């Protein structure tokens, strides 16, 4: 039961990427748990249990999405900014080195940086990410999954997983910086 409670929120979000409504996503999650119960004897421990559960879910959600004739392009889920630089090009000289040094948080009082308001800023920044970037950063940095688990669970290549995570982290870092700058002024 604890596992159901722990995994279900991310499972609903992941399912929702592939289907057209929250209700269908919930059905997919329920079907996935049923599949887990029926198939648990076949779980061979070659991947982690949570990865195996997510693979079952992703298969079900994709099948349901196809049945709804809803095929979502990878770029819609992943965001169209994966090739974009993590940083304003204007911050660099022609050789690619800083032309002005970046704003440095490190001199700020620690309680300001690590306060609850910063956590809320991070939560909102994650919500605003394209769905696949949001899910990768949640699984990796909030839930502590390994890159291999995330890659297998969401059927991503190694490179895609890394780029999605980096884009997500860069945008969250940027949001924290904007928040700290605005507080200072």
């Amino acid at each position, binding site marked *: 039961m604890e596992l159901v409670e722990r995994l279900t*929120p991310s499972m609903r979000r992941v399912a929702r990427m592939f289907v057209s409504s929250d209700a269908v996503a919930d059905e997919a999650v329920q079907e996935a748990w049923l599949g887990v119960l029926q198939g648990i004897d076949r779980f061979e421990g070659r991947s982690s249990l949570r990865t195996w559960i997510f693979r079952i879910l992703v298969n079900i959600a994709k099948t349901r999405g196809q049945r709804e004739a809803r095929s979502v392009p990878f770029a819609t889920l992943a965001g169209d900014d994966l090739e974009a630089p993590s940083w304003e090009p204007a911050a660099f000289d022609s050789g690619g080195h800083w032309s002005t040094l970046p704003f*440095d948080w490190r001199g700020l009082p620690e309680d300001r940086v690590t306060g609850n308001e910063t956590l809320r800023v991070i939560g909102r920044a994650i919500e605003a990410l394209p769905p696949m970037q949001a899910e990768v950063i949640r699984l990796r940095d909030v839930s502590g999954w390994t890159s291999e688990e995330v890659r297998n669970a969401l059927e991503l290549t190694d490179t895609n997983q890394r780029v999605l995570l980096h884009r997500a982290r860069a945008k969250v870092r940027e949001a924290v910086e904007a928040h700290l700058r605005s507080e200072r002024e």
Partner: protein
Amino acid sequence: MSTQIACRQLLELISGYLDEALPADTRAAVEAHLSGCDGCSAVLDEFRTTIELTGQLTEAQLTPAQRDTMLAAFRDWTGS
């Protein structure tokens, strides 16, 4: 001789560096760059802090109604 990387390139490698996912020669080039670059060292520290803070968030809670529906359905299947 290891290749030199510019700040703009280094910023794309930070997550890979923190996850220890870079090939050895790239990792060495990143470390060589960081040892001489205050700006990039600051950004690396900020990524570390951001990741640490992100880890303090709790997983989104289901609203009680949704959770109860899900758990009830689950009990039906398990027959408990």
